[in-house]
């Protein structure tokens, strides 16, 4: 059997105001409430609400056979509560169907792993509590921010009780191996599913690209491609086609007019018509794997971002390094001094997007960064970010 594993990332950062040096100590707040509200409302209308309606429709139509997974960050849920409660309700509604799996991650969508592992664990636990409080759900599957993974992460995550972890299926690590099989982490404590990035990105990035040979992508065509993947397996081992992407793919990165919703609406029926393909949650892999998975080592960090699939989108230039080092110093100091009133604000500054805006890589990835950034340049993003940190550190005293 081939199992299609859909996981969608739901996240929006708290973007900073154009925070001037002269605003330090002004108590004006460092986040751009108007912008953040506008983004949540816009993406809510274009993506979250219609996409949730569609998923609900598919779940009901196929009576439990259509399965999907979400990873929803703490910072986006807070914003739903403040700016668009209906969106949170609609996610709860989806989870109540029993056909949705929720994944664990850091509450703040941060890069804490590797910078402050204690902080990382705290943020993971905060997120787990949030999932329980909001959805009555306790995740078994973990995915780190931006799918960042390396061996050391497996030790921490397995200690936290997770059973499965997701990562990028890059050739840098896989070499001759196929991402269609389940693996285990280097310490053999977690089952590992690897993103099938070509097919994932066919939907997420190339769907509306008219210069792409695969254009136009239809549900028929896509189901065929998935079906053909079964040819690699001569025996009876179960395969996993792991399609991981931003949820905003539906209606926001790919506009409604591209036909992305119709594509998704028809995909399950085409998949089911093949006979040997089914949908699965990431946690299903624990039961489905009918072979002894090979363990695989990620000696260095791998992510799902940019062409490099490494950390360079967030940690490459001096702006990013100086910013993140200053942040984690400040976080530690806040904890030492027991200033819990400042902790949440500092943690919101740990969201990876802040560092993404400071990226100065050029070529095609630069364009993607620019598309997502609310600032006129990486330098401006850095300037406002550092001023905001200074504001926090002044409050800390």
């Amino acid at each position, binding site marked *: 059997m081939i199992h299609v594993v859909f996981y969608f990332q739901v996240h929006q950062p708290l973007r900073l105001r154009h925070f*001037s*040096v*002269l605003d*330090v*100590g002004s108590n004006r707040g460092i986040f751009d409430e108007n912008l953040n509200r506008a983004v949540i409302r816009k993406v809510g209308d274009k993506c979250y609400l219609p996409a949730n309606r569609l998923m609900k429709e598919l779940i009901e139509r196929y009576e439990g056979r259509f399965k999907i997974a979400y990873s929803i960050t703490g910072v986006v849920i807070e914003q739903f509560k403040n700016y668009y409660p209906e969106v949170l309700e609609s996610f709860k509604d989806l989870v109540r169907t029993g056909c949705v799996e929720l994944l664990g991650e850091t509450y703040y969508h941060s890069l804490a792993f590797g910078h402050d592992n204690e902080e990382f664990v705290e943020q993971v636990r905060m997120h787990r509590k949030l999932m329980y409080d909001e959805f009555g759900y306790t995740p078994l599957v973990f995915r780190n921010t931006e799918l960042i993974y390396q061996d050391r992460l497996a030790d921490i995550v397995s200690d936290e009780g997770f059973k499965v972890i997701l990562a990028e299926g890059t050739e840098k690590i896989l070499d001759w191996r196929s991402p269609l099989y389940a693996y285990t982490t280097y310490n053999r404590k977690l089952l590992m599913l690897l993103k099938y990035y070509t097919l994932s990105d066919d939907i997420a990035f190339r769907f509306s690209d008219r210069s792409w040979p695969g254009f136009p992508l239809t549900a028929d065509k896509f189901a065929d491609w998935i079906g053909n993947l079964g040819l690699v397996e001569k025996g009876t081992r179960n395969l996993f086609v792991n399609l991981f992407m931003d949820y905003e793919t539906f209606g926001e990165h790919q506009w409604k007019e591209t036909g992305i919703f119709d594509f998704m609406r028809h995909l399950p029926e085409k998949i089911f018509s093949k006979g040997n393909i089914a949908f699965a949650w990431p946690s299903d892999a624990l039961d489905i794997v009918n072979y002894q998975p090979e363990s695989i080592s990620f000696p260095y960090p791998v992510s799902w971002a940019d062409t490099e699939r490494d950390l360079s989108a967030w940690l490459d*230039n*001096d*702006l990013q*390094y*100086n*910013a993140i*080092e*200053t942040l984690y*110093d400040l976080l530690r100091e806040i904890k030492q001094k027991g200033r819990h009133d400042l902790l949440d604000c500092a943690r919101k500054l740990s969201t990876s997007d802040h560092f993404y805006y400071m990226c100065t890589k050029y070529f095609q990835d630069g364009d993607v960064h620019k598309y997502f950034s609310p600032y006129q*340049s990486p*330098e*401006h993003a*850095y*300037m406002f970010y*550092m*001023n905001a*940190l*200074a504001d926090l*550190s*002044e409050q800390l*005293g």
Partner: protein
Amino acid sequence: MRVLMITWEFPPYIAGGLGMACYGLVKALASIGVEVDLILPTVEEVYFKIRRPEDADILPIEFIGERKGYFTVQTRENLIERLRVIGVLERPETYIPHSLNIDELVEVIFSQEILTEKRLVEAIKRYLGGEESLFKRASELALRAMRMSKLIEFDLVHVHDWLTYPAGLAVKSSRKKKLVAHIHATEFDRAGGPGDDRIHKIEYIGLEYADRVIAVSNYTARMIIDRYRIDPSKIRVVHNAYSVSPYAGGEKRRLFKDPLVLFLGRVTLQKGPDYFLEVAGRVISRYPNVRFVMAGSGDMFSRMLRSAAARRLKDRLLFSGFLNRDEVERILKATDIFVMPSVSEPFGIVPLEAMAFGAVTIISKQSGVSEVVKNAFKVDFWDIDKTVDIIVDLLSHPEKRREIAEAGRHEVLEIGWNEAALKLNEVYRELV
């Protein structure tokens, strides 16, 4: 005495010190009875009639020709609205990037035998009519000033820096009036070495054919004597001053608990931001409880930001980007130590303001302002060690800092534009 004055920037729309200096001078001239008709690079053909000191703030607008008397009510309150009607650029460019390249422009625009009017017009059109908006606009201003000067009565013409020199020469030659060329900054200062050859030529010709040259400092007078071989006997030094802000008195309004060390100016080679950065790095390693702020924007902004990050100065060195007038005063009010490490600063008004706001100042010896103040530290811009020692010493001794700041504040309160206006008036009287 009535002066036709042509300048490139004037408050409320200014890019830098030139506008502030012109404002101070015009206002003070009006207060001693010198009348000024002011021409700015406006879209409409207008001039500003300054008869009383308050007119420098109201800027009464006079149209040339049919629309004379167009504005019936002219107040400070409707100034912005009126300026919009006549078209004034919010941020006039005062320098151009040197990478731009136009063929042999200004092959001596005004060649030796000055110049029949017809040839003048041709020369201006031909040599200044390049693609670059700045040169084009300088030439438009020259043609316009020549036209307008025929409809205005005045005793002499006074121009400020190279962008208005062609206009001054055009008026001098067509109306046979004496020309005063004011030099606030040379291309050598702006470029930190040889700059744009076309600008050098315009500067040279303007200064050479002026009847009197006003230099803002001895430093600048020496510069134009050494570099352009201008006849010293026609140069007069008139130091700049500053206008005391009503906001300058009283207690400091701190932004940070730790002392603030400020750089304020265009972030460009001339102003020495890289020296400031080096100083900041070394001070922070010796005395971490301090904040540095680099305020301003410019072509080196991005490089400075990256360099500060590369040194891992954390949030001890912050950036503000461009600040408007109100913001400038707010940050000066919060500043304890002001550093002006300019590589070459013809005058430098901001240290005077910083002193009035109660900051201790460390100023480059390569500056005009160092000729006029005593209670400031004067250091070669390149002497980073010395600057660092001074700052660390000041940070370690707050009492000493306060004493010097207080002495400095008293000193600069005595400085005003009136003295400059009196000197200028003498120059005018020599000529008329």
